[in-house]
């Protein structure tokens, strides 16, 4: 075929290999093929303006991903064969993996489902392909995380029923409801919530703490997954940025809608990250950095630059950003204190930090730790030593939106809970903060539906009339194995045996009193 036309450049060639396969339908109404694009109020004037965030054809995708998988599984195999679980810094570290597998991995799976859905909903073929590739990447993450944790599950407690627990256990409704919120929303909100707010703005505060934590604590399986997923995450971040710029440029009426989503999903993301904050500061025997440093670097600095960049679209930084910035000195301590007193009902252990760790915390949190948190911990330590390890036997009030117990404090008064409440259609609802209260006020009909675990226990919907029955029968948490204090737990004893030491630590025999 003789032709004088110009050869396609890379960009045009990729568009021919993706969006040119689509066409304007004539036998069906476009609105029937893509019925979900309008109801959110977002206006798309021209999908062809979509810039491909990356240009991977399927043959290249298969090739590069297969190379990564081959290396990853070789390391998983070697890790298991050489009992790499014995090389971690300390068995306390595994509690971070328990949190990861029950709290984070199910989100990878929900992301797979969510992206497969939006990979069909958008009428722009370029955006569909990008979302579908993210869908299959998330399936990869879900599955490789099962495989990475598989060996730990064999040698430690609490990792044995993650997906089951994710649907049921009180604190796991924090991540679960986060993703249910995004997936029950429309396709543009889903992308703003997950691709932009989560995968772009906050990803370094979720992914990096767990993966660097693994690196610092001798966990080769998890850190290898992290390295392997890095290039996937880079693609996901690029998509997040492209999405937001595209929506904003498409129509000026989109700006206030997107701003509201940014406000909402920043706050929901920030609340979810409380779990990561406590993991970083308390669950890693070898510390990477403090939560406060991580927040400063990844949110205040990087996020600050990003929102500066988005100013030209008429976007300002998320509402209540100042509250979140101030909270960096408190959230990890507040969260750990909460889990400490409710670990009769968790699939992981808690403990009081050792002296050197408390000194590290004093140093990292010079204005808050010694004043507000050290005295509490020293008190609990003493109680424990005297055979009264503290468990709180009264279930907490939960926030109607983020579903975390209402443990957070006023910006200018760390001794005052920032409790809020309103009456909606004759019913009373409670919140941990103004951030969550605002989210409720905008969509009350959504949040009144929430399956709040504590309420469901009291309604008798969790297969037990007392917490112990709920925990064992409904949650599948094995009492005396998965839950309670770390000191004296079966994990602790097994670890001491591996290291050739006998127990002999404080309170070996008092591990379960007061429970």
């Amino acid at each position, binding site marked *: 075929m003789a032709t004088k036309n110009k050869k*396609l450049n890379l960009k045009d060639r990729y568009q021919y290999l993706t969006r*040119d396969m689509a066409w304007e339908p004539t036998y069906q109404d476009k609105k029937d093929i893509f019925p979900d694009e309008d109801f959110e109020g977002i206006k798309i004037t021209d999908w062809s303006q979509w810039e491909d965030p990356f240009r991977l054809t399927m043959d290249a995708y298969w090739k590069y991903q297969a190379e990564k998988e081959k290396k990853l599984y070789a390391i998983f195999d070697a890790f298991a064969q050489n009992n790499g679980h014995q090389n971690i810094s300390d068995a306390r570290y595994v509690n971070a993996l328990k949190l990861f597998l029950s709290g984070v991995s199910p989100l990878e*799976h929900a992301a797979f489902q969510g992206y497969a859905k*939006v990979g069909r909903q958008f009428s722009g073929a370029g955006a569909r392909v990008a979302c579908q590739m993210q869908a299959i990447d998330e399936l990869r993450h879900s599955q490789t995380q099962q495989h990475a944790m598989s060996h730990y599950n064999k040698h430690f407690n609490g990792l044995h029923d993650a*997906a089951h627990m994710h649907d049921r256990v009180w604190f796991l409704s924090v991540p679960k409801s986060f993703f249910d919120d995004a997936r029950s929303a429309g396709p543009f909100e889903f992308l703003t919530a997950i691709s932009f707010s989560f995968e772009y703005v906050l990803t370094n505060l979720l992914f990096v703490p767990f993966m660097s934590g693994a690196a610092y604590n001798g966990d080769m399986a998890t850190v290898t997954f992290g390295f392997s997923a890095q290039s996937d995450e880079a693609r996901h971040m690029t998509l997040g940025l492209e999405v937001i710029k595209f929506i904003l440029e498409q129509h000026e009426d989109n700006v206030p809608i997107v701003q509201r989503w940014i406000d909402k999903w920043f706050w929901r993301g920030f609340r979810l990250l409380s779990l990561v904050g406590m993991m970083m500061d308390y669950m890693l025997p070898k510390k990477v950095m403090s939560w406060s440093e991580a927040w400063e670097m990844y949110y205040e600095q990087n996020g600050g630059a990003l929102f500066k960049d988005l100013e030209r679209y008429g976007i300002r930084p998320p509402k209540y950003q100042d509250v979140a910035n101030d909270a960096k000195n408190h959230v990890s301590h507040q969260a750990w204190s909460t889990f400490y007193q409710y670990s009769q009902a968790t699939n992981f252990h808690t403990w009081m930090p050792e002296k050197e760790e408390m000194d590290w915390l004093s140093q990292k949190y010079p204005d808050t730790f010694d004043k507000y948190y050290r005295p509490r911990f020293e008190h609990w330590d003493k109680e424990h030593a005297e055979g009264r390890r503290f468990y709180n036997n009264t279930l907490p009030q939960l926030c109607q939106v983020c579903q975390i117990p209402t443990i957070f404090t006023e910006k200018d008064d760390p001794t005052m809970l920032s409790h809020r409440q309103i009456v909606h259609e004759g019913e009373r609802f409670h919140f941990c903060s103004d951030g969550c209260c605002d989210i409720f006020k905008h969509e009350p009909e959504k949040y009144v539906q929430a399956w709040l675990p504590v309420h469901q226990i009291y309604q008798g919907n969790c297969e037990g009339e007392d917490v112990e029955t709920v925990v064992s029968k409904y949650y599948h948490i094995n009492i005396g194995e998965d839950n309670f204090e770390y000191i004296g737990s079966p994990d602790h004893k097994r670890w001491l045996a591996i290291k050739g030491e006998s127990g002999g630590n404080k309170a070996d025999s008092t591990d379960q009193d007061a429970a």
Partner: protein
Amino acid sequence: MSIEIKTNSAEPIRHTFGHIARRFGDKPASRYQEASYDLEAKTNFHYRPLWDSKHTLNDPTRTAVQMEDWYAVTDPRQFYYGAYVGNRAKMQESADTSFSFCDKRNLLTRLPESTQKQLLRLLVPLRHVELGANMNNSKIAGDVNATTVSQMHIYQAMDRLGMGQYLSRIALMLDGSTGTGLDESKGYWMDDGLWQPMRKLVEDTLVVDDWFELTLVQNILIDGLMYPLVYEKMDQWLGENGAEDVSMLTEFMRDWYKESLRWTNAMMKAVVGESEANAKLIQSWVDQWEPQAYKALTPLAETTVGTEALDEIRAQLTTRLNKFGLQQSQGVAA
């Protein structure tokens, strides 16, 4: 003589995850099992979807087909993500060799203009069918709960994109990477009478709600007629008409189709075999859609290999349907 390295084995507390042990017993499980069973959220969803008033998130009633346990559907290929991309990486490598060879030796560009036109009119427009299949399978992956089923459909979706890209590259090879061949080919898809029944069928599948109906129409009925017609019968016909070299560029599709039969057959067998009610419902969908798939391919068959070849393929599809416990469609007779 064999050498055995002694290793230090540590006694585990358990052999696999609880949800895997409940299905298969407390013994070491395969990678496929740990990656594919009971990973999805199943209950206590917090909010109802804004985009669907009839269903919850992860709602098994997104299809009218009922299964006591959707995990009765498994993948005989045992594909979890890593096994899937590993397999496809090998397939793409051999396709890559063929494309380079064809390109280097000018095997397509030296074909007579009329033959090149035939390729752009009769073969390349199937990239649009592939895009429809990509969309349909992505929808299914997002609608299905059981991971064994949803993952097969996302793999299927990405495969269809990949094959649409291979077909596109045939045109790019013909037009010297300018896109004019693709433009011409798309013109046939949009306006040529030959393609209109097929284009209508594809657009009709894009508005099907029930995901099992959709996998049946797309992955069993349309593919079951189209792949043998295009990549076997028509492939032979192209060879007889001076375009035998294009055959090496569609090897991927033949290998792919042969493999896809394994999981689609396993799925159909499990689902139709589950109950009378399923069999009846699925039969009604076969009656509704199979004749349309046949009609959609008829002009292509008439222009190339003749309708006898299509009828022969239709008889093979009937034999396949019979094995699941289904009958020949009650629509237009073969």
